[in-house]
């Protein structure tokens, strides 16, 4: 059985899309951050792989085809941004100040928490890029002397939490302006949060997509300073 699956390239892709569609159906039925389609997909896929004795590489052999689309999809985020260009120009100052403060808040909170838990410098620089998009975060972590694979895990966990909790947190902090919502979600939880922001609305999605790039680049600069703190 596992031998058959190991050699079947469509398995990973079918499992991924099937689990996601099941997640979407469950989310429609039971509306809650806990029935987030992404979270449910992981809860379905990981046990299935472990039970069938399929290792990650064999799964990825099929699943990579959907991963590949991430680059063109990220490039496509320029389109809603272009459609919202008036808003971007008009609120330039608010957007830039918001993202800057978010990058600083992220760095400071990780610094304070790592100091509180008494984590090592390696753990600290591994966690530092957790709010930025995977490709930037991975290379930044490696450059600072962190463990890139664990950074990816932290980025994914932050992203899924952001995807699950974005709506709730915006309500909690009484963030009501669509521009502010998008900037907050994108700065805190990169592309995974952005896929939620897109569902909330066009302005939210565009602003969140913009934040991925801007917060990512600012974090690269800020992390050089933050890395010296602990």
């Amino acid at each position, binding site marked *: 059985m596992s031998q058959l699956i190991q050699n079947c390239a469509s398995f990973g892709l079918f499992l991924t899309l099937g689990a996601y569609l099941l997640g979407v159906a469950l989310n429609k039925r039971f509306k809650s951050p806990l029935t987030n389609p992404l979270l449910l997909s992981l809860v379905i896929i990981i046990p299935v792989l472990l039970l069938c004795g399929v290792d990650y590489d064999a799964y990825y052999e099929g699943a990579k085809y959907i*991963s590949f689309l991430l680059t063109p999809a990220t490039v496509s985020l320029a389109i809603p941004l*272009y459609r919202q260009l008036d808003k971007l120009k008009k609120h330039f100052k608010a957007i830039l100040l918001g993202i800057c403060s978010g990058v600083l*808040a992220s760095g400071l909170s990780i610094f304070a928490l*790592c100091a509180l838990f008494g984590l090592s410098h390696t753990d600290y620089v591994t966690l530092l890029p957790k709010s930025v998009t995977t*490709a*930037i975060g991975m290379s930044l972590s490696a450059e600072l002397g962190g463990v890139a694979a664990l950074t990816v895990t932290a980025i994914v966990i932050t992203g899924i939490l952001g995807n699950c909790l974005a709506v709730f947190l915006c309500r909690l902090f009484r963030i009501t302006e669509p*521009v502010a919502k998008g900037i907050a979600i994108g700065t805190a939880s990169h592309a995974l949060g952005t896929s939620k922001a*897109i569902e909330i609305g066009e302005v939210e999605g565009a602003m969140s997509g913009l934040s991925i790039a801007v917060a990512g*680049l600012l974090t690269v600069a800020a992390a050089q300073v933050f890395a010296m703190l602990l």
Partner: protein
Amino acid sequence: MKYLKQFTIILGVCLLGEALRYVLPLPVPASVYGLVLMLVFLLTGLVKLDQVESAADFLIGIMSPMFIPAAVGLMDQFSSLRAILLPFFVINFVGLVITLGVTGRVTQFVLKREKEERK
């Protein structure tokens, strides 16, 4: 046919992004270079909105499941995570809440002040 043409243009910009990443050795992914390039092309009129819009909206619409394969990679990290599991989750959770709250409140504060100034 329309989708195929539009998708090819988007892939072309991805390709340019990858070339740019090769030339500029910053820790910036090809997709972010591509995003900036696409915006520049739209602004300069080199690419027209209706030449990419439909395919782009389709790709953005199905973006969520594209993250699943990378996220499933968690399964290979369970052993190295066990030692720092609690601090790891607390830092991720608290860090997210603080970052989202601060970013949103600051952006909204400046937006509202700008609105009042205009009045």
